[in-house]
């Protein structure tokens, strides 16, 4: 229940934060919403000498629709995204996903950026970020780089973020034409995290599926893009037989399958296929 001691900094600007990260190197971690970090520190699963709290940097918490891009500050909370009228209008997948992260208290503190960097294999946001082709903006003392969601997740709890880097913004392309989407999740009975979560962003051309983005979390040590399913669906009318055949490949892109007392590897793979189909059907039903 009680974390070990640490030094604590509250930078007011991104530049200041980056400076602190550079200064303290491996010894330090960013504190965003704290809803992954603080529980781990309380159980002393992790002890961090220096925390850089980015919660007081005002320009990290924003939702802006800029022409063809939605720009979301890394410190924007799950709840703020789920409740945002702009998000509901331009990217309902994010709103639907955000509303399913944790509970209302968690959503009021936990952040979009924090969840992505933490890369919990059962987190919801990575699935949506992958389905949406999100781009992540990383800043450090040596400048800025932009990483595609599909390159961002490296392994369980591991991303492409390098020591000294701060995730400042997530950019989501706003589709030229209306999209239909869905996020479906099987929550673990105790924790509420995803046993499986499937995010689908669907672009239809009449009754034909023009393009589809599918991100899947929960099954593998890292969230992944279900490219095999996407390929099998593109250009089809999403008839039941096609859907079933495509969804059968939902676990094909998984690096591995996880299993625990809540759901074995087999069952997770199975659920992934079932929910891939259901999520595409749900999205299609919303066209």
């Amino acid at each position, binding site marked *: *229940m009680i974390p070990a001691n640490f030094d604590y900094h509250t930078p007011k600007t991104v530049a200041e934060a980056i400076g602190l990260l550079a200064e303290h190197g491996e010894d330090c971690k960013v504190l965003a919403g*704290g809803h992954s970090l603080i529980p781990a520190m309380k159980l002393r699963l992790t002890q961090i000498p220096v*925390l850089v709290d980015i919660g007081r940097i005002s320009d990290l918490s924003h939702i802006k629709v800029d022409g063809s891009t939605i720009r979301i500050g890394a410190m924007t909370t799950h709840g703020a995204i789920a409740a945002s009228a702009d998000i509901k209008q331009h990217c309902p997948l994010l709103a639907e996903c955000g509303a399913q992260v944790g509970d209302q208290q968690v959503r009021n503190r936990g952040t979009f950026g924090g969840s992505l960097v933490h890369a919990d294999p059962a987190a919801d946001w990575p699935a949506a970020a992958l389905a949406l082709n999100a781009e992540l903006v990383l800043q450090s003392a040596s400048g800025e780089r932009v990483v595609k969601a599909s390159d961002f997740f490296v392994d369980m709890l591991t991303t492409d973020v390098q020591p000294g880097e701060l995730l400042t913004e997530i950019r989501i392309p706003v589709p030229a034409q209306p999209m239909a989407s869905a996020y479906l999740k099987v929550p673990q009975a105790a924790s509420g995290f995803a046993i499986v979560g499937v995010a689908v962003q669907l672009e239809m051309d009449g009754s034909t599926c023009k393009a589809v983005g599918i991100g899947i979390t929960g099954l593998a040590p890292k969230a992944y893009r279900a490219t095999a399913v996407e390929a099998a669906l593109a250009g089809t009318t999403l008839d039941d037989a096609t859907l079933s055949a495509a969804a059968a490949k939902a676990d094909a892109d998984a690096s591995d399958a996880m299993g625990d007392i809540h759901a074995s590897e087999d069952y997770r793979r199975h659920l992934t296929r079932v929910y891939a189909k259901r999520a595409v059907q749900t999205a299609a039903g919303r066209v």
Partner: protein
Amino acid sequence: MKINVTINGQAHEADVEPRLLLVHLIRDVVGLTGTHVGCETSICGACTVHLNGRAVKSCTVLAVQANGAEVTTIEGLANNGQLHAVQEGFWECHGLQCGYCTPGMIMASCALLKDNPNPSEGEIRHGLEGNLCRCTGYQNIVESVKYAANKLQGA
């Protein structure tokens, strides 16, 4: 580190270790013990308070993160001895037994009603997913929240 936190309308200045949890600031430093602790993994919600008007689990917020913020705890909910509609609902509808989850449950219910003044039964049940109660089986908690929703809407 010196911090200023306004709790139930009263300003408190404290010199705290950065690791001090907000719930311990509230309970041990300020001495308001209505906010409870029931777990260490942020699941039970017994520690729920309002931080700048939003429900949070105070066991998962550092006191230093609340520097400059307004906190409302269960003790600050009643107004001049007048129970809040949610408190009244819990009393009327037998929404509590041992009472340990109750402060957190009430604070979460208030926040729920703020976002959704007229929730369905399903919305109440899902809206309280961040709070565990072991005694009531939840049904009377749901009734309590409905009671409060009616009362608040009528008012």
